[in-house]
């Protein structure tokens, strides 16, 4: 009894010591935060506090960063083919890049936005828009893979996207290049009054599925950026527009003539009700809807036809224009939902509008004009305040949740911190160089995590070791927890990160999937064990259901393939452990490799052109015997009668 008692005492004492040790460690890191280097230093093996999701711009993808370290963690393929994993090359994922124009191997990704519940980031999905072939993608934050892409018909230049409403009810897509709607053959210089700028509203179901609900067929200005109302302004969406001149050539001059352009204020809830009651007209519009299924590990593309089009004049009290100085770009709403910040990029002042004043002006029918039948509110009766002369070329604003706003200035290359309500400038720091968007994790939600701010710059020049004429873009990390901003570090980013989204890591990291369960694999060509692996011929198609496990393929000797055959390698990774992918490639394949995650099945096609014995191998250094993970396919002449034969260790 005594010994057991001692034993229990010892365990109890050890437990106390261990837990005390932990809390001491915590205090220590809190006390030593004076130097900038320590603020961004994440010790080997430790995790960053935040995830940062950077748009890849013309890379078409999203890159995942750890903050504050600035370490790149992953590139998620979205709109572009990605030979690293075989995305867009494998038979399963080609459908993800299908559009009404056919297969498009590339996209221009712009504005990532994380799903929200009651205005706060919930970390279920991240959405991102594609500008060139208007699309919106949804990425799972469990698998960090693209799960769905929906195309937007009748639109061009989907830039004012992909911003989510505060319960992820809707996501919007805009039209930055006004176009004929429906598209038709007509003289370009007759655009005025004839082109349109449809704004698309896409609903999000509980399982994430996107559906194009309706398009608001706005006058043909260029709808540039957008932001949903938050909190008290939930139910509204705000879009900036430029080229109210409706110029069609030398736009840099001709679209910069009007003193004021417009913010479009859209009461989307009213329009949703209108559509529910049968409003709107079904018009033509062909669009692809591509969905990736995690169980079959395959994407399907469905071509859909027709969309409900809404004439803004038909929905009473739903659409208004607010004048805003000179070709606005950014359109941002503060966490309370009261202030709408419009950045006239050619103006030296920042205009901040009041949501409540806007409602009063609407109630009083305080209209100064109308544009194609849409009432124009007065600038004076909607403005809440003006930040005077804060810098040159204001673009975008984010918030820290403590009553402060941070705006980027492209021309003067700086971030300016100012106070909501008093409009006074509190601080300014240079960026390197010419900042576009900025990102505060949660900074466009009701509840920003006001600790770090990332400036996403357009020009790099001398910030890093030179790498020839082409440079990666540069980001800067600032500490914004104090009264004054503090520049902490520089790090390069991939492609052109327009916007970014950030979230506290602990909100999603434990949900991150480690591998796919083989039992749940429903791929029609999966071989879930070596005994299920096989080779079958169907005319000139040969299907090889092959398994991969450390460190061999099954089968690894295949005969009976002929020149002119279309050979499908359906590769199933039998591993059921974290971070044990296997790759696959075969000499002469006119496609990329595929990287197959544990429990997953992926397929590439090989069309052998020459007789011989051709090797294939694992492309990922999977194990101590990775070099031995290889096999052979015998290719016989077109008219030979070599029978199909396959084996492992025979």
């Amino acid at each position, binding site marked *: 009894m005594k010994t057991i008692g001692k034993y229990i005492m010892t365990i109890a004492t050890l437990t106390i010591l261990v837990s005390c040790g932990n809390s001491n460690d915590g205090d220590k890191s809190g006390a030593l935060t004076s130097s900038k280097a320590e603020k961004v230093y994440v010790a080997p093996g430790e995790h960053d506090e935040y995830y940062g999701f950077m748009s890849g711009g013309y890379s078409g993808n999203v890159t995942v960063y750890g903050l504050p370290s600035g370490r790149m963690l992953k590139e998620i393929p979205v709109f572009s083919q990605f030979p690293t994993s075989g995305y867009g090359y494998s038979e399963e994922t080609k459908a993800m890049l299908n559009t009404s124009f056919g297969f498009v191997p590339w996209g221009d990704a712009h504005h990532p936005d994380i799903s929200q519940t009651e205005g706060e980031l919930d970390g279920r999905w991240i959405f991102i828009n594609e500008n060139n072939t208007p699309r919106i993608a949804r990425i799972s934050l469990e698998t960090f893979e693209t799960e769905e892409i929906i195309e937007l018909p009748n639109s061009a230049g989907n830039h004012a996207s992909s911003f989510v409403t505060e319960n992820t009810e809707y996501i919007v897509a805009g039209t930055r290049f006004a176009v004929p709607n429906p598209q038709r053959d007509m003289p370009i210089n007759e655009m005025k009054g004839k082109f349109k700028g449809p704004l698309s509203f896409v609903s999000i179901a509980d399982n994430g599925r996107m559906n194009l609900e309706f398009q608001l067929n706005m006058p043909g200005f260029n709808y540039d950026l957008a932001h949903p109302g938050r909190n008290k302004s939930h139910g509204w969406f705000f879009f900036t527009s430029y080229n109210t001149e409706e110029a069609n050539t030398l736009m840099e001059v001709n679209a910069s003539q009007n003193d004021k352009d417009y913010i479009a204020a859209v009461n989307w809830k009213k329009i949703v009700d209108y559509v529910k009651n049968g409003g709107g007209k079904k018009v033509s519009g062909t669009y692809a809807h591509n969905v990736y299924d995690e169980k079959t590990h395959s994407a399907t593309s469905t071509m859909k036809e027709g969309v409900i089009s809404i004439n803004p004049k038909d929905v009473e009290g739903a659409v208004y224009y607010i004048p805003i100085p000179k070709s606005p770009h950014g359109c941002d709403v503060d966490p309370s939902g009261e202030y709408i910040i419009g950045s006239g990029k050619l103006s030296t002042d920042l205009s901040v509008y009041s949501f409540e004043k806007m409602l009063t002006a609407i109630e009083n029918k305080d209209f100064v004009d109308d544009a194609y039948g849409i009432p124009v509110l007065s600038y004076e009766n909607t403005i809440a305040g003006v930040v005077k002369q804060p810098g040159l070329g204001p673009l975008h604003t984010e918030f820290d949740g403590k009553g402060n706003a941070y705006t980027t200035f492209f021309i003067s290359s700086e971030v300016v911190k100012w106070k909501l309500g008093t409009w006074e400038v509190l601080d300014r720091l240079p960026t390197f160089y010419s900042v576009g968007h900025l990102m505060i994790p949660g900074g466009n939600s009701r509840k920003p995590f006001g600790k770090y701010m990332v400036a996403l710059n357009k020009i790099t020049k001398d910030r890093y070791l030179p790498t020839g004429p082409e440079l990666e873009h540069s980001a800067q990390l600032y500490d914004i927890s104090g009264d004054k901003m503090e520049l902490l570090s520089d790090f390069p980013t991939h492609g052109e990160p327009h916007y970014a989204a950030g979230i506290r890591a602990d909100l999603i990291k434990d949900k991150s999937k480690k591998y796919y*369960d083989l039992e749940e694999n429903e791929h029609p060509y999966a071989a879930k064990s070596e005994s299920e692996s096989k080779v079958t011929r169907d005319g000139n198609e040969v299907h090889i259901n092959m398994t991969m496990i450390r460190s061999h393929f099954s089968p690894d000797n295949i005969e009976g393939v002929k020149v002119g055959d279309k050979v499908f390698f359906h590769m199933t990774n039998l591993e*059921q452990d974290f971070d044990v992918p296997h790759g696959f490639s075969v000499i002469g394949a006119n496609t990329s490799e595929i990287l197959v995650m544990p429990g997953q099945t992926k397929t590439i096609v090989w069309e052998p052109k020459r007789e011989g014995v051709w090797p294939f191998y694992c492309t990922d250094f999977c194990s101590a015997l990775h070099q031995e993970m290889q096999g052979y396919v015998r290719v016989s002449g077109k008219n030979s009668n070599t029978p199909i034969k396959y084996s492992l260790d025979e």
Partner: protein
Amino acid sequence: MKSASILMIIGSALLLGLFIFPLWSITLEAPQYPSGIGMNIHLDGLEGKEKHDLQNIDGLNHYIGMSKLPKDDEMWEFSAFPKVVGGMAILGIIIGFLGLLKNISPKWFLTWLLFMCVLGVLGMYDFNNWMVEYGTNLDPKAIMKMTDADGNPLSYKPPLFGTKHILNFVAHSYPHTGAYMMGFGMFLTFVAYWLGNKKIKSLKA
């Protein structure tokens, strides 16, 4: 005698914990397995600490030519042990009730305990034999044939009890909850014997 008999019933009933909790635990640690990989040994079979740990242990072991871990129906022990433990628990409970109702001698408690100890030692002996077999019966075509300083084939036998380095792994082999419950139960049956004996002696005196 009443409290002694109740202790006897509780003590032997604690054996039934083995039907819920594992008897033994073997964990392997290596740099590439930051959260470890391992298995729990239950009366009726092996179970991975994580869903696919058994498969992954087999995957690692194939390099050095070890056979696969036994499935539930591949070892007679996994069908015999539940019967033996269940039988002993029931027997102990019956003895306890007889003590309560018929006032049988506390020596029966001790007899049960000694029998249990003999079975326990036999069980450990059998377990160790299996581990020797598992750790030394290697495939002659093994990918890696490791030898010790004297040139003899390396044994990959996990320790019966304790911690041991095996190549790049550190193996920990310790009793799990079920075994602790059994041990505490057996201790209670000894207390039952001791209490019962004292009571009888005091009655006699």
